[in-house]
C-alpha cells in the first residue's frame, strides 16, 4: 500500500467533527498537562521561592539562582564536567554505531533486520542489570581483577583500582548502555538512502571513499544528529550510573540534583539545578532542532 498518504477525512467537518477532535484531545493532552507540564511549572515556582517545603520560608527570591550563576560556583564546574563526560559518551557512541548501521543498512542483504535486532535487543533489557554487570566485572574483587590474579598477571593485593569508581568507568558503562539505541536512527536514515544517487556518484568517477564522504555521509547527518541528541540528553541528566560505578570522581550534575531531594532537603536549590538542566537541554534542542525530528526515532 505504498503511496497511500493518509489525508484527514474531508467529510469530517462541522461542529460534530470539532467536538470529536476535542474529545480525542482531552485524554492524552489533559494527562500530559496535569502530570508533565504542571509539575515542571511547580518546580520552577520552587526554584524562585514562591513555593517552599516549609510554609514559613515562602517568598520570592533568586538567592539560589545567584549562587549557581554568579561567581565561582561548584555547581557550574560540576555541570561543565558532566557536559564533557556526556559529550565524550555521545561522540564515541555515534562513532561506534555508525559503521554498524552502515554495514546493516547498505552492505548486508536480507538478514539486516535480524542482525539489527541483535544489536538493539540489549537496550530493551534491564538498564540497572547492564550497569551492574560492569560493577561485577570491574570491581577490586571483581571478575576481571580476580581473573588477573588467578592468571598470575597481578599480585593478590595489587588489583587495578581505577577499573571501578572512576570517571573512566562511568564513561565506559554509559557507552555500553547507549550504543544499541543509537544504531537505530542512523540505520533508518541510511536505509532510506536512494541507491541510484550512490551509483550516479561512482558512474561519474567518484571512488568508494569519495562517494561515501561526498554523498552518503552528508545525507546521513540527520540520523547522526538525532542519535547524538538522544544520547546526550539522558546522559547529561544521568545519576544512577555514576552512583553505582562512579565513586567521588565520577560524580555528575545529576547526582547533585538528586542529592538535594533524597539526602538533603534543600528543594529550592534542587529545583534551581533541575530547571537549569532543563534550560540547557532545551537550548541544545533548539540548536539541533533540524536533526531532532522525533519521527527519526522509531521504536524497533
Amino acid at each position, binding site marked *: 500500500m505504498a503511496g497511500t498518504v493518509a489525508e484527514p477525512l474531508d467529510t469530517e467537518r462541522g461542529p460534530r467533527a470539532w467536538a470529536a477532535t476535542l474529545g480525542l484531545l482531552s485524554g492524552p493532552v489533559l494527562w500530559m498537562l496535569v502530570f508533565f507540564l504542571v509539575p515542571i511549572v511547580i518546580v520552577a515556582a520552587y526554584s524562585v521561592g514562591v513555593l517552599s517545603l516549609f510554609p514559613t520560608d515562602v517568598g520570592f527570591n533568586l538567592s539560589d539562582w545567584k549562587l549557581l550563576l554568579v561567581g565561582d560556583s561548584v555547581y557550574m564546574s560540576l555541570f561543565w564536567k558532566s557536559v564533557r563526560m556526556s559529550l565524550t559518551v555521545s561522540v564515541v557512541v555515534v562513532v561506534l554505531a555508525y*559503521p*554498524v548501521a552502515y554495514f546493516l543498512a547498505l*552492505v548486508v542483504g536480507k538478514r539486516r533486520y535480524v542482525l539489527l535486532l541483535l544489536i538493539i535487543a540489549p537496550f530493551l533489557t*534491564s538498564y540497572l542489570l547492564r550497569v551492574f554487570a560492569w560493577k561485577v566485572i570491574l570491581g577490586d574483587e*571483581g571478575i576481571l581483577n580476580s581473573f588477573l*590474579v588467578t592468571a598470575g598477571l597481578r599480585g593478590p593485593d595489587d588489583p587495578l583500582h581505577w577499573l571501578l569508581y572512576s570517571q573512566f568507568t562511568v564513561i565506559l558503562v554509559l557507552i555500553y548502555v547507549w550504543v544499541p539505541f543509537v544504531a537505530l536512527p542512523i540505520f533508518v536514515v541510511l536505509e532510506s538512502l536512494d541507491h541510484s544517487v550512490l551509483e550516479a556518484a561512482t558512474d561519474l568517477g567518484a571512488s568508494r571513499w569519495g562517494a561515501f564522504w561526498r554523498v552518503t555521509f552528508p545525507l546521513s547527518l540527520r540520523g547522526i544528529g538525532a542519535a547524538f541528541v538522544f544520547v546526550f540528553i539522558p546522559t547529561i541528566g544521568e*545519576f544512577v550510573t555514576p552512583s553505582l560505578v562512579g565513586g567521588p570522581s565520577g560524580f555528575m550534575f545529576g547526582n547533585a540534583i538528586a542529592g538535594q531531594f533524597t539526602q538533603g532537603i534543600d528543594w529550592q536549590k534542587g*529545583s534551581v539545578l533541575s530547571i537549569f538542566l532543563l534550560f540547557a537541554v532545551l537550548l541544545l534542542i533548539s540548536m539541533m532542532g533540524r536533526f531532532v525530528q522525533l519521527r527519526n526515532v522509531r521504536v524497533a
Partner: protein
Amino acid sequence: MQVTASGGGRRALLAFFGTLVLFLYAPLAILTLFSFNDNRFVVFPIQGFTLRWYEAFLNNSDLIEALKTSGIVAAISSVFAVALGVLGSYLIVRRRFRGKGAVTGLLLAPLVIPYLVFGISLLVLFRAVDDFLKDALGVYFGLGIHSIVIGHVVVSLPYAILTIVPRLERVSISLEEAARDLGAGAAQTFRRVTLPLLAPAVVSAYLIAFTLSFDEYAIASFVAGRQETYPIFLYSSLRTRAALPQMIAVSVIVLFLSLLLIVGTEVGRWRYERRLEAAPSA
C-alpha cells in the same frame, strides 16, 4: 561494482560488527555464567555448578514482592499508555486542527526531558497536592503504586505513539471511508476497521510500555515512597555483597524473559503485518 563497500571493506565491517556484538553480549554472558557459580562471592576462579542462587531468590519474599509490584505497575501503566497512545496517534494522523504541532510536541516531549528532572517534578507535584488536601480536607494521597503508574504512563506515552503512528499512516483511509459509506458510525468504524488493522502496533506498544515500566528506576526512585519495585530492590541490594549471587540469578531470568519477549513480538508483528499488507490486494 558494489558501491557501498569493497570486498576488504565488507570484511572489515563484518569484523567490526562482530566485535561490537561481543562487547554488547559478553558482560551479559559473564553474569549468566556466575549465576550458576558455587561461590558466595562473585570472583574467579569458577568453583562448580549450583542452582542454589535460583532457589535462594525463590525463597526471598521481599524480592518476590518487589517483582509483583513491578508487574502490577507495568501492567496498569501500559494499558493507560497504549489507550492514550491510540487516541493521540489518531489525532496526529487523521485529524486536522489548530495547534496540532504544539499538541504533538507536548505528547512527545518526555522523550527529550531527563527522567531525573521529570521524577523530581512529579514528586514536587504530589507534595503540593497533598499539602493542599491536608489543609483543606485533612486527607492526602501519599506516594505509592499510583504515583509510579502516573509517571510511567507519561514516559511510555511517546513510545506508544511512535509505535502506532507509522502503522496508522499505512492503514488506507479508503477502508475507513468504505465502512462509513456502508453506514457505520465513526465509533463503529474505529472499533471494527481501524483498531483491528492497528492490532500488531498496539501489541508492540503495550510490550514496549510494559518493559519500560518494569525496568524503570530513575522516576520510581523519587515517587515510590516506601513501595519497593524490582529495580528499586535491585538497586539497594547492589550495595550489599551478600545478596549479589541471588540478585544475579533473578536478573538472568528477567534478562532471558525480556529477550524472548522482544524477539517473539518483533517476529510476530513482522509476520502479521506482512499478512495485512498482502490482504487488501488479494
